[in-house]
């Protein structure tokens, strides 16, 4: 049996990759994918602890998270399409309207 330790380590590794991706990539699609990665890192954590504690609540929760993530991905993609149409770019470093 794979010990809990490994699962947590995997989840942490995935989450870190996601964070680095969100912070460093220019392309909005990659950023979005990185966010999905972070979400799923959390999911792995949930399932692992659910199994470890012998409590199904965590796994049910994961189903919900995946659903919400799918909806969120749909909305996000729609925004990205509009962004690409209006600004002609999907590169994050070209959107700095919030500059002080």
């Amino acid at each position: 049996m794979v010990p809990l330790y490994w699962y947590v380590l995997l989840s942490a590794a995935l989450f870190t990759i996601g964070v680095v991706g969100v912070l460093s990539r220019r392309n909005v699609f990659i950023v979005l994918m990185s966010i999905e990665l972070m979400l799923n890192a959390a999911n792995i954590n949930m399932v692992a602890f659910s199994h470890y504690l012998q409590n199904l609540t965590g796994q049910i929760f994961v189903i919900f998270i995946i659903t919400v993530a799918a909806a969120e991905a749909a909305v996000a993609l729609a925004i990205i399409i509009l962004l690409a149409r209006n600004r002609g770019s999907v590169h994050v470093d070209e959107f700095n309207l919030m500059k002080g």
Partner: protein
Amino acid sequence: MLKYALIPLLPFAGFLIAGLFGKYLKERAAYAAVAGVAGSFILSVSAFIDVLGGTIIDENLYSWFAIGNLTVNVGFQIDQLTAVMLLVVTTLSTLIHIYSVGYMHGDKGYARFFAYLELFTFFMLVLVMANNFVLMFVGWEGVGLCSYLLIGFWYEKKSASDAGIKAFVVNRVGDFGFLLGMFLIFLTFGTLDFTDVFAALSGPAAAQSYMLLGAEIGVMTLISLLLFVGAMGKSAQLPLYVWLPDAMEGPTPVSALIHAATMVTAGVFMVARCAPIFSLSPTAMTTVAIVGGLTAVFAATIGLVQNDIKRVIAYSTISQLGYMFLGLGVGAFAAGIFHLTTHAFFKGLLFLASGSVIHALSGEQDMQKMGGLKRKIKVTHGVFLVGSLALAGIFPFAGFFSKDEILWSAHNAGEVGRVLWMLGVFGAFLTAFYSFRLIYLTFYGKSRIDHEVEHHVHESPKVMTIPLVILAFFAITIGWIGMPGAIIPHANLFGDFLAPVFPVLEHGVANHGLERWLMVFSVMVALAGIRLAYSLYVKNTSMPDRLARSFKGTYNLLLNKYKVDEVYNFIFVDGLVHRLARFLYNITDVKIIDGAVNGIAGMIRRTSEGSRKVQTGFVQEYAFVMGLGLVVLMGLYYVLK
């Protein structure tokens, strides 16, 4: 007590009605105003009868404020002195209110005028009825405020609003002295109630003295002199008289009520009220007498050559106020108040009569453009003549009795008094001359009136002439209540009535023979003045011009009022005020205040210019900082746990 409290409150009610509802009442506001003062007059008569019957009222209505051991009450004191002032103020105020109904007819500030006049009457009554210095000061400042408002009544006129400001500022100088005097009284006696202060005068506190500029000055002298500075401002004495001639910019009833009969005599009243304090300091008394005597002659000389009818009377007022102070200064307090009373009537009369002349001539005030009015405005001419005879001090008109009592007291007051007596007699000569110069220029000789104006010359309406006739009656008879012992022995009702209020200062024994001769002498002097005026302005009308040409320097000096205004302007306004203003503007305002404000703004801008670089606008960088913050917080949590 309610009856006495109503004396000032009725005019105040009139003020509220005329002031608040004047817009709707229009000219009907005058009814409320006249009713207010008339009610106050009736109550004053009743209060006077009470005092005559021996009732002296000194009662606190309520405690205004108390700080530490200073307690200030709103309280009224009605003794003989106050009773006299009440009668003078309310009589004059009522008559002048009635007169104003006609005089101000058609003015667009009609209701406002009556509101101010009522407010003035209220404050003046508070001033004379107060039983402590603080409440008196409230009245004192209040009448100053109303004076300012009424001088600048026609505020569209630049000269009028300037004159108002000048009156206010000059009075502040005097008020400063009054305030300091009050502080010193409180410091010395620990109270500001008249009765308590006067009772403490015989105690040890009054004997203190201060070292000032190397000289030892008794505290009573210091208090008296400071209070007298206040009186100088309000009563237009040298060197603070400059505001009064300019105050003639106000409507004529105002000049009569405020700047002749009542407010300007507040200083005289204050000194008389504080007679127990002043009489303890021979230095202060002498100062009062000398300032009064000098002012009497100084103002009279300026009055000799002025051409504005109201200004002549204004200088005459300053001069007569000088006589009052001369009387107070030589210890003849009752005589000073007596002159105040007679002067209020005949000077009020003169001002109102000159208002009637101005009214008849559609606003003309220059005497060089009058003349020959005797037949056209008969009533005005008659009352003007009565007023001038009273002013000149001709027997048996009012001014004769009061002025002579003052001169006689001065004559009895040692060597300084003798010199002051000579000044006074000289002043009486000048007074007779300028008042009849005014009469002759205005009513006699050939008409020099503009043709346009001449068609409209008319006698004033009844509502104006009746108060004039009443005042003229008083200008003849009011002096008889103060009959000097040299004419009818033991008939000086006025002096006997006031005797309980004032300390007695011994000045030798009465010498009726000499007094009679001095009276004859001063009447002769006055007649000589009239005679001179007659020969210069009726007989030899070219003479004044020739005199003016041959004594050009003197004439111009007098015409320009000794250039005192120019000197004050140069020293105080340009020299002091403007320089100070420039300093305050260039250094304090621009450098310090603006510097501080702009400096702080600039500092914030520079800091924010640095820190706004953090706001790059890149979401990723924000997210990075957020993550970093989270890590730091979690790290802290683990470290500190």
